């Protein structure tokens, strides 16, 4: 063996040893990093159900926009139509307040109209509307996991 040959030609065996060594090291590093990151992504969440019952339709007055504290949504009733508007600002997640006909966000000043459309401020898109249906026992059933367009009503 003459490793210290002055012309530094790599032998075939040397090349494979080196290549294998590097590949093994890179593989081990990547696999450990990937494993650690994957470990940190939870598989099961213990978060509240996205669906909830919002009481009887008649609990809401005609023309009223009612805020439900625990769910951070507004129930909007007009005549016998019901819709549900998210109160979570689409900018960075603060809860909007009712202001006049529309909504104001206290965090960075976004202003929304009564349809949740952005009038001014940094919010990039309108407030979300959630699907509303009627449960078997005649309660409003809201699913915050299902977004709908603003022209979807529950008619009673």
């Amino acid at each position, binding site marked *: 063996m003459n490793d210290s040959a002055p012309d530094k030609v790599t032998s075939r065996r040397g090349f494979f040893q080196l290549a294998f060594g590097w590949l093994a090291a890179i593989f081990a590093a990547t696999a450990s990093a990937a494993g650690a990151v994957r470990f940190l992504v939870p598989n099961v*969440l213990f978060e509240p159900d996205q669906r909830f019952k919002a009481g009887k339709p008649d609990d809401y007055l005609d023309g009223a926009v009612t805020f439900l504290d625990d769910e951070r949504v507004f129930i909007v009733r007009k005549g016998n139509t019901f819709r549900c508007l998210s109160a979570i600002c689409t900018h*960075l997640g603060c809860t909007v307040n009712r202001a006049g006909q529309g909504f*104001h966000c206290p965090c960075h000043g976004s202003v929304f109209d009564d349809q949740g459309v952005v009038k001014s401020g940094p919010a990039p898109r309108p407030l979300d509307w959630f699907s509303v249906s009627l449960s078997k026992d005649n309660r409003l059933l809201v699913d915050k996991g299902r977004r709908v367009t603003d022209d979807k009503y529950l008619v009673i």
Partner: protein
Amino acid sequence: MNAPAPKRLWQRFTRTRVGRSIFRVGLPESNLERSQAMVSSFLLHVQPAKVHRHALRASYSLGLGLISLYLFCILCGTGVLLMFYYVPSTDKAYDIMKDLQFVVSAGLVIRNMHRWAAHLMVLFVMLHMCRVFYTGAYKNPREFNWVLGVGLLLVTLGLSFTGYLLPWDQLAFWAITVGTSIAGYAPVVGEKLKYLMLGGHIVGQDSLTRFYALHVIVLPAIAVLMISVHLFRVRKDGGLSRPDEPGDVVEQIPLGQLPANKSYGLMELARGTTPQVGKNPEDEVFSWPHLVFRELLLFLLVTAVVLFLAIFWNAPLEEIANAVHPPNPAKAPWYFLGLQELVSYSAFWGGVVVPGLLVTALALLPYIDRKRHGVGRWFARERVVANTIFSVCVAIAVIFTVIGSLFRGPNWSWVEPWKNPPAVTEGH
């Protein structure tokens, strides 16, 4: 001469068998002993036995890096104490903060110290960065130490951010809601990153657990490592930067061409020159007592100031976290208010693009501005362009911070601080 009693006692102790086994050198009397004291003590040996006079000039470094280091030490000390009571649980955390304030002996002062030292550390790390910039100290061979510094700035901000979630008060809750939502705007990985940070979709127990782990072990460990390397590099890069002197520019002779009629020490071979080349003994003084004494004095001063603040001013604790209603206005701590103002124009541009570009520019700076002039002096004429650009950036950052702090009221609307803020009438 009659030495004062404590000194005499100490000297007698270090001459006993036990004293000698611990300290090796007593209070140094001669220059030889001064050097021995520096190299034989664990805490002191990280510093050279002799330092350049320039490095001792308080008007040069302003001691800002050291102050940051001392604040970090105070934070570690008080932080560990707080850990003996704190539990990262959404049910308990807030009550424990109240206990610390009203029940635990000295709890109030220790919590205050931790909070004020954290604010000061952010401030002093920023000031230290400005000092390094205005003295051109990031230039060759200190480029990489500047990059480490940029990392340390980010770690410092990360420590503050993760720290203020822990009390689980209104500020905590909404700052994290907003902060992680900003991360959600990052291109491609944004939503995943947010999910990873929160450990779910909502700010809750999982988020608190994660931020706690980051705050008490991950980030401090990274900080300790990086600070160690940072300080090591200050020394290996030749001590504090100073103006070039004729003797400084030393030609290194490549190994193969060293004259053969001489024997060489390992240091010489490793460095390319003997350790003495480029040093003028006239310019150097013994670290003991000149450097060590100053460092000790500064440490006492920093501790005294933090203690003073902690005794006379209480760290804020807002109402308990309310996951439904943010306070109005919901404001971040001062060092993030510039960012919050930016974000109030656009979350993507203000929260992702501008900070991203700023950090990249800072990290690349020493590789862009490579001319070796004006190092080691404040506001050198030769650096007027660089200094102007930097000053404009600093001024803009300050203006945004001031606007965010003082000129924003309910609903983030424009208010003039000298007038009474408009009453908040909205609600549910």
